[in-house]
């Protein structure tokens, strides 16, 4: 790891000011992606601003069906929240299958969403739930937030504060983990809410997380796994690598969507 200067922020405002004062700074959330990336020297920020201890960025609040989750809430906290599980068990289950138990103790929702790894789980949930990503300067709809793999609408120095969404009537996530890395080779979050059915796919697309209009249309008329039987998922735009070619991934999208629908 190249050298860096570590700062521990005690408030969101302090973090923003430390970040803007840094030459080439980066926010350090749980560090479960950033630290390994720095160890490989694929990232070398001049300054790290650790926001994992900022209390105002943590916590889960549920009011009726409205859910808000602080950016620095860990995967373990999301997975074990009885309040969240009562209204949106699909998201709690998703969090409980990210990485492994030790990673879930450190990794955070905000860190995952900001990184927008094409195989990360949370982006599919945010997109399918139609979440709003609140930053220190504005609110961004998930549809506008996830732009391309590892690319989001976040500006330089902008920091995620929380995400919020209306818990769907039905919602679940199904993923096919790579047998070695356990990253999603395909993960599909299906949600049926007040605004209709939304289906978001991670791990499979060559440009990051995306929605499937065909599957949304099929599930809107009949929210059942076999309603997807007639949908053809094109291999165009799917990732193709040693783990699985585009046709294989296209098939996985449909299989995972059916499993998620059946579980919802």
């Amino acid at each position: 790891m190249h050298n860096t200067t570590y700062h521990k922020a005690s408030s969101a405002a302090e973090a923003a000011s430390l970040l803007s004062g840094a030459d080439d700074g980066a926010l350090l959330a749980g560090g479960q992606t950033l630290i390994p990336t720095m160890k490989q020297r694929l990232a070398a920020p001049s300054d790290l601003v650790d926001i994992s201890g900022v209390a105002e960025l943590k916590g889960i609040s549920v009011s009726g069906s409205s859910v808000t989750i602080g950016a620095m809430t860990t995967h373990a906290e999301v997975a074990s929240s009885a309040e969240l599980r009562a209204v949106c068990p699909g998201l709690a289950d998703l969090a409980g299958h990210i990485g492994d138990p030790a990673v879930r103790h450190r990794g955070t929702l905000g860190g995952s969403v900001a990184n927008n790894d094409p195989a990360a789980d949370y982006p599919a949930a945010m997109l399918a739930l139609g979440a709003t990503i609140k930053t220190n300067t504005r609110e961004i709809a998930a549809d506008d937030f996830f732009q391309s793999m590892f690319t989001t609408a976040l500006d330089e120095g902008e920091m995620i504060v929380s995400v919020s969404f209306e818990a769907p009537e039905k919602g679940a996530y199904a993923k096919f983990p790579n047998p070695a890395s356990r990253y999603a080779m395909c993960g599909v979050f299906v949600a049926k809410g007040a605004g209709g059915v939304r289906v978001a796919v991670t791990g499979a697309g060559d440009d990051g997380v995306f929605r499937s209009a065909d599957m949304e249309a099929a599930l809107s008329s009949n929210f059942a796994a076999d309603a997807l039987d007639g949908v053809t998922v094109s291999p165009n735009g799917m990732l193709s690598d040693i783990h699985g070619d585009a046709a294989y991934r296209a098939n996985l999208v449909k299989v995972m969507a059916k499993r998620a629908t059946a579980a919802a």
Partner: protein
Amino acid sequence: MTSISMTVNGKAVTADVEDRTLLVDYIRESLRLTGTHVGCDTSQCGACVVHVDGKAVKSCTMLAAAAAGSEVTTIEGVANGDLHPMQKAFNDNHGLQCGFCTPGMIMSGIDMVNRYKAEGKTLDEAAIRAELEGNICRCTGYHNIVKSISQAAGEM
């Protein structure tokens, strides 16, 4: 350099470390507590698992500076005179062969038993195997590790 203070195995420690120092390197190189191992160094194998404020974390994927102010427990800190029930269970069930992964297995084992107890859930064999996702053993085939954790869960 950053000056850090934390509690490790019940003892207060203070040191000046480079900001980029990993927690595992601080534990092994500065504190000379070499029971915590570095296996893969890519946060996959779990040989480096320690507890930070009571929670299992991979100490190769956390900065020492980020652990400042925390209570850290390593494999050297779990026995209290006698072996910890988890250590005894690994001994009783031959839960290791080469032993390289064992410190991490024991720290993860203690963590999962504590969590399941706190949540009132049953830690059955399937749950133990799922919870061991982040701990890799290349010798045993896991059977005796699972038996060990299961025995300790009944004794802790």
